[in-house]
């Protein structure tokens, strides 16, 4: 028996070690990438860089318009996507019967999640920029990004709603609450941390996307801040693309600095979402 077992155990140990190496080889580069950008980008960060306008054909100066543009876009995306997505999630979790139509909605959401971002850009160009006449504007870009973000927020919100125990609803209804009152006063507050996490993860994705805003918002270079939703604007991801491929003789320090600003924005959203989720899990009473 021992002679049979030993090679099997040996193989198991070798296999486990191999898988651990694979996981390490997958996880470690992520830290290296982030660390490298921080290391290379940090020297470029200064007050002037964060609050200044690009100068000398973007080869000097700061990235303020791009930061402001990305904030506007993220905000606009949130304003449009959040109510719609939460409504859709409430419908799926609380109202929808398990029938053909509900399955069709689910299929539609799955497919929305899979459509390439550049195709969203084409769609935004066709519908919002040209057909509805919004022009290349924050409005057109936010609408495009919002539709792209919907599936992420819907599915995380629905999951959060379904995690609220059924008995909570029964108690509320037995006390005379209507369906909407139950959702509004009991289910939504209980699911709030999960919903916020989903919203932030959705917005994180929107903030970092370039392809959907290429033809709907992005300005190569604008020496002023946007003043209305119908203005075009610069944005961090597009700016990074421009200065790393389209501008010859671009100082490398500014490129890494811009990458670091974008990275900081995205990663801090990600960390906030993770913290909210794990805190809510730890404090959950049910």
């Amino acid at each position, binding site marked *: 028996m021992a002679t049979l077992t030993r090679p099997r155990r040996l193989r198991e140990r070798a296999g486990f070690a191999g898988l651990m190496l694979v*996981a390490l080889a997958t996880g470690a580069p*992520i830290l290296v990438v982030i660390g490298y950008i921080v290391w290379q980008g940090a020297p470029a960060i200064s007050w002037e860089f964060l609050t200044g306008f690009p100068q000398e054909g973007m080869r000097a100066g700061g990235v303020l318009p791009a930061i402001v543009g990305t904030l506007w876009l993220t905000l606009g995306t949130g304003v449009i996507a959040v109510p*719609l997505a939460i409504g859709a999630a409430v419908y799926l979790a609380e109202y929808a019967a398990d029938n053909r139509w509900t399955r*069709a909605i689910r299929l*539609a959401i799955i497919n929305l999640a899979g459509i390439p971002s550049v195709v969203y850009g084409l769609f935004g160009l066709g519908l919002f920029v040209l057909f509805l006449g919004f022009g290349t504007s924050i409005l057109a870009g936010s609408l495009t990004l919002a539709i792209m973000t919907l599936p992420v927020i819907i599915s995380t919100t629905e999951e959060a709603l379904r995690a609220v125990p059924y008995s909570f609803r029964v108690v509320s209804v037995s006390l005379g609450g209507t369906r909407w009152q139950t959702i509004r006063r009991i289910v939504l507050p209980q699911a709030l941390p999960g919903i916020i996490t989903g919203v932030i993860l959705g917005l994180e994705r929107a903030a970092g996307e370039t392809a959907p805003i290429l033809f709907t918002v992005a300005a190569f270079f604008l020496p002023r801040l946007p003043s209305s939703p119908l203005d075009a604007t610069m944005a961090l991801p597009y700016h990074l693309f421009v200065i790393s491929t389209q501008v010859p003789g671009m100082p490398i320090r500014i490129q890494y600095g811009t*990458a670091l600003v974008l990275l900081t924005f995205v990663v801090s959203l990600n960390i906030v979402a993770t913290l909210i989720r794990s805190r809510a899990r730890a404090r959950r009473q049910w």
Partner: protein
Amino acid sequence: MRSVTWSEFVITRLIKTAGYSAILFIGLIFIFLLREGAPTLLEVPLRSLISGRWYPIEGYFGLLPLIGGSLVVTLGAAMIAIPFGLGTAIYIAEIAPRWARELLKPLIELLGGLPSVMLGFLGILVLTSWVRTTLDLPTGLTAFTGALLLGGIAIPTIVSVAEDALDAVPRSYREAGLALGATNWQTIWRVTLPAARSGVLTAIMLGLGRAIGETMAVMMVTGNAPVVPTGLGALFHPARTMTATIAAEMGEVANGSVHYHVLFLIGIVLFLISLAVNLTASSLVFRERKRAERILS
């Protein structure tokens, strides 16, 4: 009481509308892609579209090099993302101690959130020169460079979906394997993985779907040369994907021109590919659930 029922009615309507909006959006996307892309079929003869030459300035709109470019880069990405993605998923779901799992999962999620333009930027500055010198190529802007980045981009999807599938395998399956004298290693390969087969397949499909639709990173590092790939060697030459073509050329075409319509046609092709991938993936999951229900009842 009356006002309660009335506002309840309005709110229920609004929520229902929000619920159905996803279907509306899919419809709108398809309609507007068609509206701008369909005229191509009248303007460019089909024979020209399936030719091997993409040179829009002179009116050559052969889509083959672009489709081929997307395939080569995605296949390359698959060779990286499948082993590393599945390996990591198995490690997280079956082997890792708690602390390693708590460390790896957020890290992989973070990779999923990194903007692709940032990976493309690092690709240009670091990866291309590494590829050029290590593989001794005339240029580092190759399909292989794009595949390396795309592999990384597809990994988070593969890991999270595959890990969910492995988690969903009932504990009793593993216990039965171990009770029969199999080692943990044998149980993973002969019991758990086969039981999670359809979920793992879904993970691979969704990951590759993500890869074929990825734009910025690929556009920045693949060199964008529209050449019909002829063999495995194509991986080490510049290539141009469908997504990169749209992103690179849409800014420079006149609205309503033939070139503009062709770019939307490429968008339709990408839309249909993603539709096919996602419908197949979700039908796989659905079929599996049905089978599980049949076994249990």
